[in-house]
C-alpha cells in the first residue's frame, strides 16, 4: 500500500488481528483479489479478497459507509462513472479480468445486472421498461419482445398484477411493484449475476417479504449478490454473508455459521447490535 489516508491508518490500527478467513468456492462466478479502491485520496475499499459462489445469495452487511455498495458497484463497473475513482487489485468474472483492456463495459453490465436502492423505472410504459434492455441489445421483433416481457414479469412475480396495464406508465405502480419491475427489467436480458443494492430499504414489510421470496426463487437461475444494512434480512435470505467494516472485509462465511458463531469480535459486536 503506497498511500494511506488518515482514515485508512485508523483502520489499520483498529484491525490488528489476522486476515479474515474466507470460504473457498469451487467455481466462483466473481472473485476479487486484493481489491482496493480510492475516491480521490480516500481509501474506500482496502485489499478485499473474496469469491462469490454460483447460484447462491451472497449478502454484504456492515454499517453505513463501510464500502459494501462500493464493492457491489465494482462488479458491474458502475464506479467507472465517477472520475476520481482509482482501483487496484484484481476482479475476475469466470476467471477473466473485468477491468482488462479488451473488456466491453456494456457487455459486462449486460451479464451482471443490477437493482438499485431506489426503484428507478424509466418514465415509460411497463412494457417498454422491461423491453428496454432487449431493445438496446438489438431485439426489435414485437412478438419476441412481448414473449420476453411476459416471461420476465412472471419471473419477477409481477405479471398477474400488471398484465392489464402494460401500456400504462411504470411510475403509476406502487413502490414494491416498481422494485419488482426493476428486477424484471434486469432479468429480461438474461444476466448471470444480479446485484441488488439494498433493494428493500425503501419498502414496507409486506413488499419486502415479496422481494425476499422472489430472491429465493431467482437463485435457482441466477447468482445473487445483495447489499443490506438489515442483518435479519441477510440472515433470512442469504447463503453466504460478508461483513465489511471501514473498507475492510472483516469476516466472510456461510450465513448460518457467521451469525451463530462469528469468529471476529467486530462481527459479533455488529450482529449483536453493539454498534452499527
Amino acid at each position, binding site marked *: 500500500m503506497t498511500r494511506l489516508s488518515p482514515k485508512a491508518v485508523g483502520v489499520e490500527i483498529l484491525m490488528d488481528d489476522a486476515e479474515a478467513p474466507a470460504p473457498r468456492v469451487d467455481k466462483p462466478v466473481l472473485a476479487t483479489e486484493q481489491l482496493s479502491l480510492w475516491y480521490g485520496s480516500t481509501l474506500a475499499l482496502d485489499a478485499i479478497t473474496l469469491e462469490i459462489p454460483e447460484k447462491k445469495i451472497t449478502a454484504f452487511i456492515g454499517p453505513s459507509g463501510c464500502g459494501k455498495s462500493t464493492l457491489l458497484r465494482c462488479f458491474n463497473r458502475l464506479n467507472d*462513472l465517477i472520475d476520481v475513482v482509482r482501483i487496484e487489485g484484481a476482479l475476475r468474472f469466470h476467471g477473466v479480468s473485468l477491468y482488462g483492456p479488451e473488456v466491453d463495459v456494456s457487455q*459486462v*453490465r*449486460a451479464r451482471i445486472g443490477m437493482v*438499485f436502492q431506489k426503484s428507478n423505472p424509466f418514465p415509460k410504459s411497463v412494457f417498454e421498461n422491461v423491453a*428496454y434492455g432487449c431493445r438496446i441489445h438489438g431485439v426489435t421483433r414485437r412478438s419476441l419482445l412481448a414473449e420476453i416481457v411476459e416471461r420476465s414479469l412472471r419471473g419477477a412475480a409481477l405479471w398477474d398484477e400488471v398484465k392489464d396495464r402494460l401500456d400504462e406508465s411504470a411510475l403509476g405502480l406502487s413502490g414494491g411493484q416498481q422494485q419488482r419491475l426493476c428486477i424484471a427489467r434486469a432479468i429480461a436480458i438474461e444476466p448471470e449475476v444480479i446485484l441488488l443494492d439494498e433493494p428493500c430499504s425503501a419498502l414496507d414489510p409486506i413488499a419486502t417479504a415479496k422481494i425476499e421470496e422472489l430472491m429465493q426463487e431467482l437463485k435457482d437461475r441466477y447468482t445473487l449478490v445483495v447489499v443490506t444494512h438489515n442483518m435479519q434480512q441477510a440472515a433470512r435470505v442469504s447463503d453466504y454473508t460478508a461483513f465489511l467494516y471501514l473498507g475492510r472485509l472483516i469476516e466472510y462465511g456461510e450465513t448460518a455459521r457467521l451469525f451463530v458463531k462469528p469468529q471476529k469480535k467486530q462481527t459479533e459486536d455488529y450482529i449483536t447490535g453493539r454498534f452499527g
Partner: protein
Amino acid sequence: MPLRRRSDLVGHLMTWLCAGTLALNLLLILGLLGLLASEGLSYFWQKPLWLLELTDGKKILGELYETEDIPQSGRAGEEQKTRVRVKVGNRDLSGSDFRWIDEAQIVARSRPADAAVLERLEWGNFHGFARELRAHGQTLARGEDAVWPLLDKLLREKAKERDALEALEKGELGRINYALERLRLAERKLSLETLPDAERTRRAEALSREQAEQQAAYASVAARIREKRSAFVAETLVVETADGVQRELPVGYVMRAIRPNALGFAGAAKLYLSRAGEFISGEPRESNTEGGIFPAIFGTVMMVLLMSIFVAPFGVIAAVYLREYAKGGVLVRLVRIAVNNLAGVPSIVFGVFGLGFFVYLVGGTIDQLFYPEALPTPTFGTGGILWASLTLALLTVPVVIVATEEGLAAVPQIAREGSLALGATQFETLWRVVLPAAAPGILTGMILALARAAGEVAPLMIVGMVKLAPALPVDGNFPYLHLERKFMHLGFHIYDVGFQSPNVDAAKPLVFATALLLIAVVLASNLVAILVRNHLREKYATRSI
C-alpha cells in the same frame, strides 16, 4: 409564558412586501396590455362623422379625435380655450388628414345621415357626399336614394374585379417575370461557361425560344390586364366635399363606402370585423399607414420558426457536450462563462457580426460559387431571412444552452445508472432516457429564446429586415422557399410606422394595433411551446421519492 404566540412583525411585513411587489408587477403588465388593447382595438371602430360650420363660413366634415386645452390661454382670468383634433380626410385636396380646430370657431355642428366616408386605395379616406354615379360618362344614378343601393352593388363587383386583377398581376404576371429573370440569368451563365461552340449555340437557341414563349405569354397577359383595367375604371362616382368641391373618382378605387351616421350598431360591428380582418390579412398601402400587416406577421413568424430550427439542435448539442461528455476542467468552466456572457452582448453587436460574417463572408462566397451569373447583383450576399434567422439563432443560443444544461442536470443520476446497468452505452442512455427526461427543460429554453427572438429588432435592421418587402419569402414559384429574400417584421413595422411615417397622425393607432398583434404572436408561439412542454412533462415525469 408557555405556548404564547410570538409576534412576527418582520415576517408579516415581508409577506405583504412580496405580495405587494407581485401585485405591482401584475398591474404594470395589465396596464400595458390594457393601453395597447384600448388604443389598438378602437382603431377599427368607425367614429361618427360631424359636419362643423366655422365662423369664417367654411364647412368641415370630419371625425373628432381628441379635445385639448390651448396652451397659453386661460391665464389672467381669461376663459380657458380648447381645440379639437379632427380627421378631415381628403388628403388630395387639403394635403393633410388631420386638423386642429379651435372650438371657439365652431358655430354649428351636426351629424348628417348622408355624410360618407370613402376608403380609397390611394390618398386615404374621402369625407363628403355621394352625388352621382356614372358609367363611361353617362349618368347611372343621381341623388342619395338612387346612388347608394347601386354603389353598394358596384363595390362588391369591383372588389371581385380587383382581386382578379391582382391575381393576374401578382400571380400570372409575377410567374412570367420570375421565369424571364431566370432565363436572363441562365443566358448570362451560359456566356460565363466554357463550352464547345455547337453546344453553346444549341443551348442559346433553346433559351431564346423559351424567352420568346414567355414574352408572348407576357404580352397576352398584359393585354388582358389592360382590358380589365379599363373596365375596372369605367364606372365613376361623383362626390362633393362639405365645401361643395366636386370630384369624380373611379368606383374601383374605393374599398369601402360607409355612411357612419346611419350605420347603427350591427353595421358598425360588421364594419369593425371587416376592418380588423383586413388589418390581419391585407397588404400595407400608402407607405404602411393603411391596409394590413400580413407580410409583417408572416415574416415575423417565419423568421422565428427558422431561428428555432437552427437554434434548437445547435444549443442542445452544445449543452449535451458541456454537461454529459466534457470533463469538468478549466476549459469547460471558461466556455460556460463565455456562453453566459454571450447572453449579455448587446443585440446590435450580433447584427453587425451577422452582416460581416453571414451576409458578406458566407453569402458573398455562396454568390461567387453558385450565383456568379447574377453578380454584381447579390443573391445571398445581401440581407435576407436566412441570415436574419441565423443571426437571431446566435443571439439566443446561450439561452438554450443554459436551459438545456439545467434540464440535463435535473435528470437524476439514478435514471442514468438504471440504463447503464442494463448494458446501454452512454449515447443510448442519453438518447433514450436523459434527453426525453430533459425535454421540458429544453423547451423552457426554447420558449425564452422564442420570446427574445420575436421581440428583437435592432440586429435585424442590418441583416435583411425591410420596411416594405416586394414578395413573401414563400410563394408559388419554384423552389417555393426563398431564403435569400428580404422580409417584413412586426417589431420593425412598429418603429417604421410610428417614427418614420410621413403621416404620423394616421399612423399612431396602427402602432398600438401592431404592438398588440406582436404580443399576440409572441404569446401564441409561447403557448404552443408551453403546451408541448406540459405534455412532455406529464409523459416523462421523473418521480421524486
